[in-house]
């Protein structure tokens, strides 16, 4: 654990900024900034997560030229970007770890994701005070103060910060800073306790994956949620772990490209087959799919919930669909309650 003063941290990041982009929370999302002016970040999370930096809304997979009816594939335009992302919350770091595993593990390496991800230095910031829509502790009680996959992870104490790293490149950046003294470490412990205490009461998630799985056919369980679902894709687009994409093709002036785009399981086109058959024909199946995937399938397949409790979908849903209610209700239903 290192001690780092506010201006030292700003210098560190702004120096990195001479050779790479600096991303920081600005308003609703993470934006490129010319320089970092403050290490203060707003409580809770940004409306949109940082996933767009590694997994852009639109990304070219390959390009080609059309000459006399023939196509010529160009060399593949792998994305290239170097940056430092400041201000990631721990829930977002959990989400990035899941995205890493999903895109770069499981047999095939998604080189487009990998390339952008490797180019980014992650600066995480522990939560002093959770927002009322935070529920990361439902999945892991220590999340709000967990360094996760951050290269550098910061604990903002009164007028300086403590910093730790989980990667070699992070360690290198911190090597010149002094080690934390006893007093700071004591303060850190208090910080952690207060942070965790600011979270809502933990909802039981042991066995959640099985509970939700078994509710698949329970129309009554889903009815109230379904009644208000508008069927838009906001929940999936603001979610830091939603990774679904579509692949499309376009030719403009003899130059063609195959590109991918964010897609959403909430859209009817998502599973519509060429034959006209759609295994998820109505909004009901599509709404259910999202909860199934977040709270059950992901756990069954990877041993991790693809919900990190960031609360973004809760905040952003125009109809106020609240995943916390679905989790809580699954407990009472399976206990024979309502």
């Amino acid at each position, binding site marked *: 654990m290192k001690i780092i003063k506010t201006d030292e941290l700003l210098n560190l990041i702004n120096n990195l900024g001479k050779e790479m982009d600096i991303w920081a929370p600005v308003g609703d999302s993470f934006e490129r900034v010319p320089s970092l002016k403050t290490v203060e970040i707003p409580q809770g999370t940004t409306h949109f997560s940082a996933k767009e930096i590694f997994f852009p809304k639109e990304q070219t997979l390959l390009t080609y030229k059309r000459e006399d009816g023939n196509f010529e594939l160009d060399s593949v335009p792998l994305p290239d970007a170097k940056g430092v992302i400041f201000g990631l919350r721990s829930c977002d770091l959990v989400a990035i770890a899941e995205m890493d595993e999903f895109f770069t593990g499981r*047999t095939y390496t998604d080189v487009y994701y990998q390339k952008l991800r490797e180019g980014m230095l992650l600066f995480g910031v522990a939560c002093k005070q959770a927002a009322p829509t935070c529920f990361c502790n439902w999945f892991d009680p220590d999340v709000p103060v967990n360094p996760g996959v951050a290269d550098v992870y910061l604990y903002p104490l009164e007028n300086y910060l403590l910093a730790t790293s989980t990667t070699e490149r992070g360690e290198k950046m911190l090597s010149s800073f002094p080690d934390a003294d006893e007093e700071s470490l004591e303060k850190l412990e208090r910080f952690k306790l207060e942070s965790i205490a600011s979270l809502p009461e933990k909802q039981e998630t042991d066995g959640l994956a099985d509970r939700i799985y078994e509710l698949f056919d329970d129309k009554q369980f889903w009815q109230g949620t379904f009644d208000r679902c508008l069927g838009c894709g906001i929940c999936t687009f603001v979610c830091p772990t939603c990774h*679904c*994409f579509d692949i499309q093709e376009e030719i403009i002036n003899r130059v063609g490209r195959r590109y991918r785009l964010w897609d959403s399981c909430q859209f009817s086109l998502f599973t519509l087959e060429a034959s006209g058959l759609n*295994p*998820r024909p109505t909004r009901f199946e599509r709404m259910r799919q999202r909860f199934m995937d977040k709270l059950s399938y992901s756990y069954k397949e990877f041993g991790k919930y693809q919900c990190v409790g960031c609360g973004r979908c809760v905040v952003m849903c125009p109809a106020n669909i609240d995943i916390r209610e679905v989790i809580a209700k699954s407990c009472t239903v399976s206990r024979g309650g309502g």
Partner: protein
Amino acid sequence: MNSENPYLPLSSELVDLWFETDDRQIKSFVVELPDSKRFDYKPGQFCQLSLLGVGEAPFGIASSPDEKHLLFTVNRIGTLTSALHELEKGTEIGIRGPLGNWYPVEKMKGHSVVIVGGGYAFTTLRSLFLYIASPKRRGDYNDITIVYGAREPGLLLYRDEFDRWSKREDVSVELTIDKAYEGWTRHIGFVPAVLEKVAPSSKGAYAVVCGPPIMIKFTLPVLEKLGFPPERIYTSLEMRMKCGIGKCGRCNIGEKYICYDGPVFSFEELKGLNADF
């Protein structure tokens, strides 16, 4: 498969193509990869075929790994398949594969195999049949039975080959059409009914079923009646796919991705899954 970038298609050449059915809705395509790019595969795997400027879609490999070229049989149904049907010999086709898992040809060794197919869904079954019935492997398997049907004779796939296979003494080939048709001398009736009549022994046998959902629905009870347990009945599933490598997120049935965990599943595996359909 391009080992550095799984989204990058290999370039292959369309060396031959023909109409497979009389309604001219289904065509077979013979595709040749340059020697250095040839890949090994197993029956049941699929490839993503792509045309630059049009798009990409998954197709089961209909050829046997013993054959020199890849064979795909394509039903004209959407934008890409229509474009494929328009192609001429010599055209370049993008190809990614082999993808997905395969029929349990190792586990089937020493056992009988019943292949049940309907309509257009005989593509990977052709691959499976040629693989297990090839002279060099025939001895590894006990009885091999095919029950295959279509609405009418002109809609059966691979008709010349079926004529040849029917003459073989080491395999049983039971062909059927839905209704009587002039000149047709083989079975008449739906696949499940013919299967029940043929009644292949289930003793230590595996069944592989591919066909329209309605055919599968009525075939399963017959297989059950014949004594096939769900862990020895396999099928190959289809769903809309984009990436084919388990990333784009759309082809799941419950927690399984068809492209990545499948497309081949036993009914034992499927039984426990939350299926949307």
